[in-house]
């Protein structure tokens, strides 16, 4: 009774019982060993399995469930050496539990992931809403080091810390985003509840290509307890870094209102080398902003520009009230949500091409529009200071 399994099948919860059945059949003893041993095979034989499943005894099903728990624990312990506990000292005080209109973080420590053996650590910008002037990290072995903030990306809610003087730090394996499957197991981990051992929550990948293509979605619990921590697969490989997100807003705290709701986000990192290089170089990546107040066009296609903010990208290319925005990089825009979605795909500093029907001439024009960051007089907390 030898079944051949396809790797991806193993990673889907709705296949895990078959997966475990395989283990029970004596193919392999542990789920992880199983996965490793079967990685090279690409064939699937399903028919035999379905017949087999209804034969499962209660004891076997019970065993199957216990094995999934074992797999979760094993996944957590695989990535644990690369997790750090982040402590902050000082920072702005919250007024009635809020900072700059954002629900403040708790008093506890937060989570980060080591991404290079020489001490670069990724975490979520949410963890620094209070803008602490001093940050330290505790490695999994208990050693404490001071960290400096190197770069941040507000479009992904992540930032890069660096601790100095270390080599050979353990870095986790990352899963390429293209290999991530909707429906596969996802385990979120974080040390935010104050224990040195990370808390875990399990679920599945709910969707990919969310938030302007920057995030994957999961129904595992995501909250301040694991923002900055990893979302891993059953083998303990990192699928993404947990962050608060909300497609409607790129404010640093937006998305925290959905904590532990079954709607959670993580930013995949396997192909993020370019991004990480920019952060290592000290870049501050900010969301894109056009600078128009607009609404649906009551007379047809496109978005009607109601007002152009002074000194904004829109005013620089001489957009005017009454102009109709028809498309962005050849994507038609007919409603506000679509406009937001399209803009969210870009970041400040990038240039988009827009097609506009001018009020003055009635002609359609193509314009190059260099995007800028949103003005700083918004309710957002200011940029984090560099750590001394």
């Amino acid at each position, binding site marked *: 009774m030898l079944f051949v399994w396809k790797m991806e099948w193993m990673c889907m*919860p709705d296949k895990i019982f078959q997966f475990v059945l395989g283990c029970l059949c004596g193919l392999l003893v542990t789920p992880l060993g199983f996965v490793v041993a079967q990685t090279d095979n690409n064939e699937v034989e399903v028919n035999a399995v379905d017949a087999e*499943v*209804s034969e499962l005894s209660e004891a076997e099903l019970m065993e199957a469930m216990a094995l999934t728990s074992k797999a979760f624990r094993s996944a957590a312990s695989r990535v644990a050496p690369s997790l750090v506990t982040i402590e902050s*000292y000082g920072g702005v005080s919250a007024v009635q539990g809020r900072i700059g209109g954002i629900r403040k973080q*708790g008093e506890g420590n937060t989570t980060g992931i080591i991404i290079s053996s020489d001490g670069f650590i990724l975490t979520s910008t949410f963890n620094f809403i209070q803008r602490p002037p001093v940050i330290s990290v505790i490695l999994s072995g208990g050693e404490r080091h001071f960290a400096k903030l190197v770069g941040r990306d507000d479009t992904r809610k992540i930032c890069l810390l660096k601790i100095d003087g270390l080599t050979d730090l353990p870095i986790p394996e990352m899963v390429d985003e293209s290999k991530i499957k909707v429906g596969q197991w996802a385990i979120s981990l974080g040390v935010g*509840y*104050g224990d040195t*051992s*990370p808390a875990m929550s399990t679920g599945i990948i709910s969707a990919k290509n969310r938030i302007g293509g920057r995030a994957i979605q999961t129904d595992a619990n995501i909250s301040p*307890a694991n923002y900055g921590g990893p979302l891993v697969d059953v083998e303990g490989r990192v699928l993404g870094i947990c962050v608060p997100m909300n497609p409607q807003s790129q404010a640093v705290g937006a998305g925290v209102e959905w904590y532990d709701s079954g709607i959670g986000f993580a930013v995949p990192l396997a192909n993020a080398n370019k991004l990480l290089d920019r952060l290592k170089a000290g870049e501050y990546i900010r969301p894109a902003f056009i600078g128009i107040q607009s609404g649906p066009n009551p007379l047809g296609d496109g978005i009607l520009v109601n007002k152009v903010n002074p000194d904004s990208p829109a005013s620089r290319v001489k957009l005017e009230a009454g102009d109709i925005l028809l498309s962005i990089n050849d994507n038609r825009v007919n409603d506000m949500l679509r406009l937001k979605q399209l803009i969210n795909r870009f970041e400040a500093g990038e240039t988009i091409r827009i097609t506009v029907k001018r009020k003055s001439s009635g002609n359609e024009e193509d314009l190059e529009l260099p995007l800028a960051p949103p003005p700083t007089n918004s309710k957002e907390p200011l940029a984090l200071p560099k750590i001394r």
Partner: protein
Amino acid sequence: MGCVVLVCGNHLAFAQQKDQPSFIDQAISNSQPKMVKVFGASAGKVEGFATGIIVSKDGLILSSQGVFLDGRQVKVVLADGAEHMATILKRDRETQLSLLKIQADTPSFFELSEESVGEKGDWVIALSNAFKVADKDEPVSAMLGVISLRTTMEARLTKRDVAYRGELVLIDAITSNPGASGGAVVTPRGNLVGIVGKIINSSETNTRLNYAVPSSVLFEFVTGKASVTGETQPVLEQQDVEFGVVLFTLGGRNNPAYIDRVVRGSPAAKAKLKSDDMIVSIAGEKIGNLKDYAESLKSLRPEEEVLMIVKRGVEMMRVRIAPRLKK
């Protein structure tokens, strides 16, 4: 976790093709007769209902603390819909538990284990009457999740509440909802992990916790081994102590604890602390700001040496230092 429930639901369907009851199904249906719905007084926005579990064959019921206990009557509805008036045997401020008694035979009940049941990553089923969805003889709602962490942590409902400092079993099924407290958290084999606790916020994360009060704590509470009256520990007379440092206070109490000046001849001077050092931790407690520093001093005794960690430049220094009685 909603999707996971559905997924497992599919497997129940699998297993049931041959009319075999699945084990999750079995754990739930075996637990249902041991569950009760509790109704009592409400106060303003605070709901007057909760869930409870039967813990003896003669009508002992374990539930949570709450305003529903404060009215003239507490009504308990058994799984078969039978209603009984309950008397309150005891209630505890710290564990936020209550023990009720009804005059009825209750042959199905949960055994309370003195040992802890379940470890991180284990599947658990939470059963509760959250939002009082179930009425009369309707079964209470079941949710599936895993144990996130077994830990001790400080958490409180409001500033006035006594903070619970015992062990909590954090789970990832969302149980922090009105009426869920007093519900059962069981393993797929139907063993009791603990009962769903009251809605509390973690001071660590500023989020609502989903957790069970573990069975070992329940056992102590029911068997009377725990102090249940909220007895206070004999308080040592507090003495004001100091290290002999003046901290930078400009900018408010949320500043990190930077040393401005070290008093000559003080413990700090003997420990060779200097201006601009930042106090990172005292006796293992992190000093995040001036407020933490002031709190920390209150717990220290004169001439008792503690470990202090200090940041000097980018270096981390460990010093042994004993505070002196404040002059």
